[in-house]
């Protein structure tokens, strides 16, 4: 029998309701090690909620999530909730980069990266700083290690946030529209870092509206609408020849903006 490592994340039948509204309706997603999945779809389609369910920040109402083979949130063989401390330990194995710029403003760039290492991983400060500097170097911000967030551009702040997530050496990295809050000229540097991570086969799920990034970096595209996965395909097939009517309509609407840009003299 061939023994294979369990996938970093495997979710089946995820349902999430907010009041009467069903935001996620039976969504399943398994991400293989080293795979890059881009989730796209219109706003309100449940993309961000999916990430928040998968990281247990918003526990799902139904479904099963396994983090590297370990049942997330609930204890196996029953529906008993794990202790808060266990959930935190599990959550610390999932890296999360959010849409909003939410570095902690009272800590330097290095301080932001070190916080989880020192308080969650209980690493000595000197070692945590060494590791923090290495990860800041990875996102090209070693020189800004001792700068406070107020002195960093939005793009730099998001790169520090990526370093903060990477430093915890997570099983998987989640990106929730990491460039949506940025000025257009700052989007590129963040996508460059994410593209480099993708080429290094970092396991990632990226919710994004950046179609060209999804087309280039993703191994797989997940198109969501109204809380369901409508289409799942390789980028080539999804962007070149979408199977579903809804995918086609979404792409027409989204990509026509780019075509206008290209056509204008």
């Amino acid at each position: 029998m061939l023994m294979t490592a369990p996938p970093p994340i495997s979710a089946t039948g995820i349902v999430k309701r907010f009041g009467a509204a069903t935001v996620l309706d039976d969504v399943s997603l398994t991400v293989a090690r080293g795979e890059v999945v881009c989730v796209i779809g219109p706003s309100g389609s449940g993309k961000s909620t999916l990430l928040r369910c998968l990281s247990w920040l918003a526990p799902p109402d139904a479904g099963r999530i396994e983090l590297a083979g370990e049942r997330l949130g609930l204890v196996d063989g029953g529906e008993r909730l794990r202790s808060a401390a266990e959930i935190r330990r599990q959550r610390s194995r999932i890296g999360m980069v959010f849409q909003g710029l939410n570095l902690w403003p009272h800590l330097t760039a290095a301080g932001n990266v070190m916080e989880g290492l020192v308080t969650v991983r209980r690493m000595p400060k000197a070692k945590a700083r060494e590791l923090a500097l290495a990860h800041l170097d990875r996102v090209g911000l070693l020189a800004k290690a001792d700068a406070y967030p107020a002195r960093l551009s939005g793009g730099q702040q998001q790169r520090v946030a990526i370093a903060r997530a990477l430093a915890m050496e997570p099983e998987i990295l989640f990106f929730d529209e990491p460039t949506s809050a940025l000025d257009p000229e700052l989007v590129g540097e963040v996508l460059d870092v994410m593209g480099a991570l993708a080429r290094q086969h970092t396991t990632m799920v990226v919710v994004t509206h950046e179609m060209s990034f999804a087309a280039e970096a993703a191994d797989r595209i997940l198109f969501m609408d109204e809380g369901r996965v409508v289409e799942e395909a390789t980028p080539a097939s999804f962007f070149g020849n979408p199977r579903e009517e809804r995918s086609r309509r979404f792409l027409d609407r989204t990509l026509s903006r780019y075509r206008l840009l290209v056509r204008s003299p």
Partner: protein
Amino acid sequence: MFDTELFLESVPTLADAALVTIRLTVVSGALGLLAGALSAAAQLSGVTALRILSRIYVSLMRGTPLFVQLLVVSFGLPMLGVSADPFLAAALAIGLNSGAYVTEILRAGVLAVPAGQIEAAAAVGLSPVRIWTRILLPQAFAISLPALAAELTIVLKSTPLASVVAVTEMTYSGVLIQSRAFSAIEVFVPIAVGYILIAQAILRGARHLEGRLARARA
């Protein structure tokens, strides 16, 4: 007529008593900050029992005179079998009283921290206690610094009430001299100046700290 001799005679006694006032202000202020931080955390914890407990504490402290609170604490503690030093009893009463106001000040400061930062901390795996001590309180403290400094000056001006439980702070020390010498002006003018100087030190210190925090984070 201003009795210069009495004035010069009183200064050393009043200076000693001023030290008691300063110590009482510092200890009460620290207790108030601690009580306020715990109570603000309880109120925003989402745990109903803690929230109610904090609300009761705040309404009790804000709804009764500090004078009565001082009497309750300093006569109540011995009844509970705790032999309380007057200074500590007074500091405890003034500190608990101030804590109710600090609760509201810090609560506003914590609510000013964007929710995304709390979510980011939870995503890294920080526990609720760590989120409070590492993320929320340091920022709430910086945001609330001017209001906290003002609260500390109110603590300073509450310390004369400690005389009711026999703490000889600056004002009471003046009362003792005045009742002996039958002269008020020579004693209470320097006392008033003393309070102004201490209050100025508090406000300037806070302004300085504020500037340093702002510069560090800029």
